[in-house]
């Protein structure tokens, strides 16, 4: 584990054309890392995430991605991700190839990747149109023991997984608490793991079975307070639901979106500067 400024961690480990998973299920979404990828102008990324959320709306709208692997692409509780929709419906700012899973499938695909398996297995539950369009990564087969129909889902192995977490200790071990989604599986499936954290502490506030990623699994870490905003970090700050509601209007039209990104994300030197311009920093 290398402790690096976020700018250097992204520059060193996120290359054009890489497959990158910024995970965190609603909670602990690595917004600061996503913004740094945008500032550094990465192109042709294959973005992977269960719920693309606003951070992928921003990356897609800024032209960083050519491929998206996902399982639910909306603004939770609000509606559409307008930039994702514009890319899929009108190829703006560039075409976006989609690989679509359900939540259970993508979680399983990460788990398979994390376990060194070529695929994961689940019970076949229904016949839907997803069966027709996803044959490249999802097939049914009979169980060799019972003959029961199973669904096999191809493993997902990102080049880089990026997480946000609460704490890192002196040795570089990282604690994640609260809603963890498939963050652990996505990290263990990846070639490299980057982490941003709220704070560096002498000793993690971790109970025995807490979700701790050992330092030797982590490629690089950066201390970025507020790094999940407008998502949240349990124990540090709440989700800014007002921002999620406001994003619907900000992202609806191309010009307003581009102007907002230029003024807030591109013009800010780092995440702390962004939080100050948004009036969130206390």
């Amino acid at each position, binding site marked *: 584990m290398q402790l690096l400024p976020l700018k250097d961690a992204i520059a060193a480990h996120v290359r054009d054309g890489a497959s990158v998973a910024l995970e965190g*299920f*609603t*909670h602990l979404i690595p917004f600061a890392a996503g913004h740094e990828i945008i500032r550094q102008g990465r192109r042709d990324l294959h973005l992977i995430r*269960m*719920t693309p959320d606003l951070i992928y709306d921003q990356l897609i709208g800024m032209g960083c991605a050519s491929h998206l692997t*996902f*399982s*639910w*692409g*909306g603004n*939770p*509780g*609000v509606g*559409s991700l307008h930039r*994702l*929709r514009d890319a*899929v*419906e009108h190829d703006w700012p560039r075409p976006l190839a989609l690989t*679509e*899973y*359900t*939540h*259970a499938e993508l*979680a*399983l695909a990460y788990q398979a990747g994390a376990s060194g398996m070529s695929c994961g297995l*689940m*019970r076949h*539950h*229904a*016949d*839907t*149109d*997803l069966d027709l*369009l996803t044959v490249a990564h999802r097939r049914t087969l009979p169980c060799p023991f019972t003959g029961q*129909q199973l669904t096999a889902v191809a493993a997902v192995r990102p080049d880089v997984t990026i997480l946000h977490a609460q704490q890192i200790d002196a040795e570089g071990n990282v604690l994640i608490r*609260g*809603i*963890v*989604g*498939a963050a*652990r*599986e996505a990290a263990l499936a990846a070639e490299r793991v980057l982490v941003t954290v709220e704070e560096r502490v002498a000793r993690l506030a971790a109970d025995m079975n807490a*979700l701790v990623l050992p330092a030797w699994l982590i490629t690089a870490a950066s201390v970025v*307070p*507020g790094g999940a*905003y407008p998502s*949240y970090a*349990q124990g540090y700050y*709440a*989700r800014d*639901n*007002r*921002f*999620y*509601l406001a994003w619907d209007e900000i992202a609806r039209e191309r010009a307003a979106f581009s102007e907002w990104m230029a003024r807030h994300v591109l013009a800010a030197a780092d995440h702390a500067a962004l*939080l*100050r311009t948004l009036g*969130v*920093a*206390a």
Partner: protein
Amino acid sequence: MSARAPGYTPDEIMTVTAARQLRNGAVCFVGIGLPSAACNLARLTHAPDLVLIYESGTVGTKPKVLPLSIGDGELAETATAVVPLPEIFAHYLQRGRVDVGFLGAAQIDRYGNLNSTVIGDYAHPRVRLPGGGGAPEIAGFAREVLIIMKQTPRSFVPRLDFRTSCGYLSGAGERRARGCPGAGPRAVITDFGVLRPSARSEELELVALYPGVSAAAARAATGWPLAVAERLEMLPAPQAAELETLRQLEERTREAQARPIRIALPAAR
């Protein structure tokens, strides 16, 4: 609608009616939006032991305000357990531990199949919708499914643009014959009344209406020739206590959402 205002909105009677479908003690996998409001209203009124599970891995959660997302901190803080996502889908849902799945969607057909993927062609959609998320597995594995949707000819369609989640497929036992684990949709609650699958064909049939709503209006809001039960039930209006609980819940939610977020940053070096 009658000329005299009934003292509740169409949304309110829909949410109250949906909440009444949930029995106390059931384990319920909750979709966001209207399902979440109905499930929490049920928990705060007649079903205090309702076990609510959200796909974020929050099990037995008792939120004081309605979450905007399925993963708000409120859900984690008030949960019995917070488990990783692969576990909620495998150990709880797939294993058959969920009694009721509660879903919404953009489109529904006469057999209760749901579309939340695209309007138009998949490769060149007119509208790209969010996609399946947890819905396909919830629809497949929950012992039974409740659906809550506003009824319009655009959402209640003769043919789905995309079948994201299974209802009764083509009806007449096809779902069962294909080995789908759960029993399928038990009821569809709309802003007109309640639809249920008819026994043999499994086609949705209008079985109950709200006060002041006509079967003709419900049929006009449906994109296929909606079957109407011989004996139509008149649903009771919301009780004062139900309305008060729902309105207080919504008021608390508004207050919570208006609260500004402040993040303490270390002093700039």
